[in-house]
């Protein structure tokens, strides 16, 4: 049975979560067999990251079993044929080892001439489960390889992910009463989730209007006394290509109003890319909190920083989150994709745990990461692994040869 580890609660100031305790108890007596029946606020509980590895796996495996069955049934083009051919079903997944037998869904793969992207290009609705009756929103991935992958989300799904992002904000020290200015494109899923999370947190959220220049953003920060800046900053060598959201990034804001950033902003939340050294030095030089989180249109959030002073989980060292996605870093070993050991690099793979919309089962979008610590090695109190060196695999099909789901 899952157990909230009391000893860790005090370190991060994680309050005892009675609702979560009840949820765990109820879960194990079978109350939440359908992940969609889990109330979204449960995914916002920081108690998730205090669970031990075994407890997490016990819960997740049950959710994954359900989702495998549902994916096979409701997304037949993506999962149906391959799972049938391999005689795979949720019932057969009783342990994590069983789960490793499920083939990867590889975004960039063209294995055996079958391309996930091509299928999606042909008909994006193959990613919408056919049992969804409510309205959905479509959030598209960056489309860096020519085809943006859509993720269909219901209001429930947005609640789940928004609540989880709120939890990340809490880990980062962003709190009720803060005023958050976000330059992130509101039509991107990240921008939407920052808005939802800010609202749930009780913060004031100010989105950058699409045509606002850096100077106008600086004026807004100044006028509204925004103390949290949520923006992007890509690698410098890539120049303007990395200004997600129409031309405003941290560098352009520094040029437009360094003095305003110094005076008004005390927390920087910079996403979209690995934090570059210049931004880290900037934050340290001006004594600002700097945090980031990992997420994508398909699965958000996946990992986060904390503001715990003695934690390892600073800057580009992120704790994997326990839900609402199951995030793994895998390598190929003896014909199967298995978790990498501490210090090793592998591909990032995630599986949807709680969602009405698009289900991703062992989905690899082509990202790589290195595992820095095992569970329980960070002083911050979060019990999950820390990952870092997150980037894109140049030729993911060369990294992954364990199969592709498209049927």
């Amino acid at each position, binding site marked *: 049975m899952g157990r909230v580890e009391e000893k860790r609660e005090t370190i991060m100031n994680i309050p005892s979560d009675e609702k979560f305790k009840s949820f765990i108890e109820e879960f194990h007596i079978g109350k939440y067999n359908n992940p969609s029946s889990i109330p979204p606020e449960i995914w916002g509980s920081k108690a998730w990251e205090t669970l031990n590895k075994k407890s997490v796996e016990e819960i997740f495996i049950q959710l994954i079993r359900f989702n495998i069955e549902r994916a096979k049934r409701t997304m037949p083009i993506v999962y149906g044929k391959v799972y049938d051919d391999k005689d795979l079903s949720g019932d057969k997944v009783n342990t994590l080892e069983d789960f490793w037998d499920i083939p990867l869904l590889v975004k960039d793969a063209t294995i055996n001439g079958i391309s996930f992207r091509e299928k999606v290009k042909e008909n994006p609705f193959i990613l919408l489960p056919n049992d969804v009756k409510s309205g959905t929103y479509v959030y598209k991935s960056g489309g860096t390889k020519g085809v943006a992958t859509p993720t269909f989300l219901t209001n429930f799904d947005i609640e789940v992910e928004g609540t989880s992002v709120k939890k990340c904000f809490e880990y980062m020290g962003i709190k009720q009463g803060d005023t958050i200015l976000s330059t992130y494109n509101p039509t991107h899923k990240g921008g939407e989730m920052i808005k939802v999370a800010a609202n749930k947190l009780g913060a004031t959220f100010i989105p950058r209007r699409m045509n606002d220049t850096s100077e106008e953003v600086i004026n807004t920060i100044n006028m509204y006394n925004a103390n949290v800046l949520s923006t992007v900053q890509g690698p*410098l*060598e890539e120049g303007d290509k990395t200004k997600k959201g129409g031309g405003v990034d941290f*560098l*352009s804001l*520094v*040029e*437009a*109003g*360094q*003095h305003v950033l110094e005076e008004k902003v005390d927390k920087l939340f910079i996403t979209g890319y690995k934090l570059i*050294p*210049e*931004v880290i*030095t*900037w934050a340290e*030089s001006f004594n600002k909190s700097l945090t980031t989180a990992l997420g994508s249109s398909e699965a958000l959030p996946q990992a986060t920083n904390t503001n715990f002073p003695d934690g390892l989980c600073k800057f580009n060292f992120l704790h994997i989150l326990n839900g609402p996605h199951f995030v793994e870093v895998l390598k190929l070993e003896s014909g199967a994709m298995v978790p990498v050991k501490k210090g090793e690099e592998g591909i990032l793979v995630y599986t949807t745990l709680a969602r009405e919309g698009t289900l991703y089962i062992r989905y690899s979008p082509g990202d790589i990461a290195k595992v820095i610590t095992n569970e329980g090695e960070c002083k911050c109190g979060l019990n999950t692994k820390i990952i870092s060196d997150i980037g894109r695999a140049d030729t993911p099909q060369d990294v992954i040869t364990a199969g592709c789901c498209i049927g």
Partner: protein
Amino acid sequence: MVFNNLISGKELLLSGERFDVRSKFYDDYLTKVPNSNVFDIKMAISKAKTAITELSELTFEDRLDILKKASRKIFANSNDLEYAVKMIGMPISSVEEKITDIKKIITTVPEFVAKRFQITHGKIGSLVFNDPNMLEILEPLDGFVYIVTPGNDIRIVPFVIFWLVTLGMAGIIKVSKNDLLISQKITKTVIDSGYPASAVNILCWDTSDERRDRLNFDIIDASKVIWAYGDDNTVDNLLRFEHVQNNGFTYKIDHFSDKVVIRHASGRAAVVCDTNIDIEKATDIIVSSALEWPIGCAALKAVFDSNSKHEDLLNMVKEKFDRVSKYIDDPMKSSTKIGYIDPTIISHVFQRARTLEKLGQAEIIHGETYSDIQASPLLTVTKDKNSEFLSTEFSLYITSIKKCESYDEAIKEVNETGTRNKRLVISILSHHPADVLKKNLNAHHIKVFRKTTEVDLLFHEGNDYVRKLTLPQIHRSF
């Protein structure tokens, strides 16, 4: 010694990168210098722009007070002197003299401005037609100044900073990799004395690093004024023209197109000796102009001598060169008068002088190499008015003398050998100063019986700093 940039009074290096700068003369003297990137640059731009509002609240008198306060604080300790000597190679006694110069010019600049113009309501101005009801107020240009300085004279960065303060302007200074210590120390002193921290920003990067090619252009595009030291080709290549490829075509972008540009490109200072002159005084001027800071832009390089006692003058100059040569030693010693010089320059110039001597086109009267970085002063005599020794800026202890048949011939030759670009200075050694004004001389600064190295603080190379950096606003009243 490890350096950062100095942005808004704060030592910062957002790029996190430094590059090694080793003394050319002291192999064990190594500094680590900031290799700024676009983040450092953009922050400095932002700071400099922000400073403009703050500066508008300071009156001329406030700024003069700041400079007076700073003048009392300026000093160089043994580390500062060692740094300058080891990076530049000039003797410590000469470096100390430059520090004394810095302390002098800090208040002289604003005092000269106040003398030349009128200070009214805290602003620099002047009466038009001597009419008390018509006043021309000189407002600083609306924008910051981007200054690129060389590493051959520790006075240059202080000089430009004192100008910024005098006029109430903001600037970004890209300093030489050899000139971090004193430039930052002076900047901190001026800021500590009350000048807005964001108004003076010191940056440095490795200009040979291809990843840094665009940094100059970023700053220039954001600035109003470019103040660049260096020959025209270098300045145009590094700062002005950018070649951009697009659709198979190469476009040339002129980043100076809408800027005010102050250039410091010239050198090749010369002396012309009239027929009857006080040759002792002339000798003093020639020798000190040539030797006191031979790597500076105003150092004397060529003498056109029509004086009737040519041989006497030549002997006296040689004798003084001999005397100075007794003090060739480590520049860190206080008695040393001849310092170290870039080995490639020594090698090239001495080799060329010997070749010309063999060809009968020049005679070496004085000068020999002591090591690859040290040589006694080179004195050559040439009959060839087209000799490169009369028209080229060689940054070492050198001067060349050409005998001329008449004063007019000397004037003609100093002009002809000045090439298309004017010489920086021609000093006329004549006891008839009024006649000098009648002559057309191919130089920016004309001096009469003065050292070529005497600095004209308000003007340089055709630039009137006050007029160039301000815009007149006319006030009329009853």
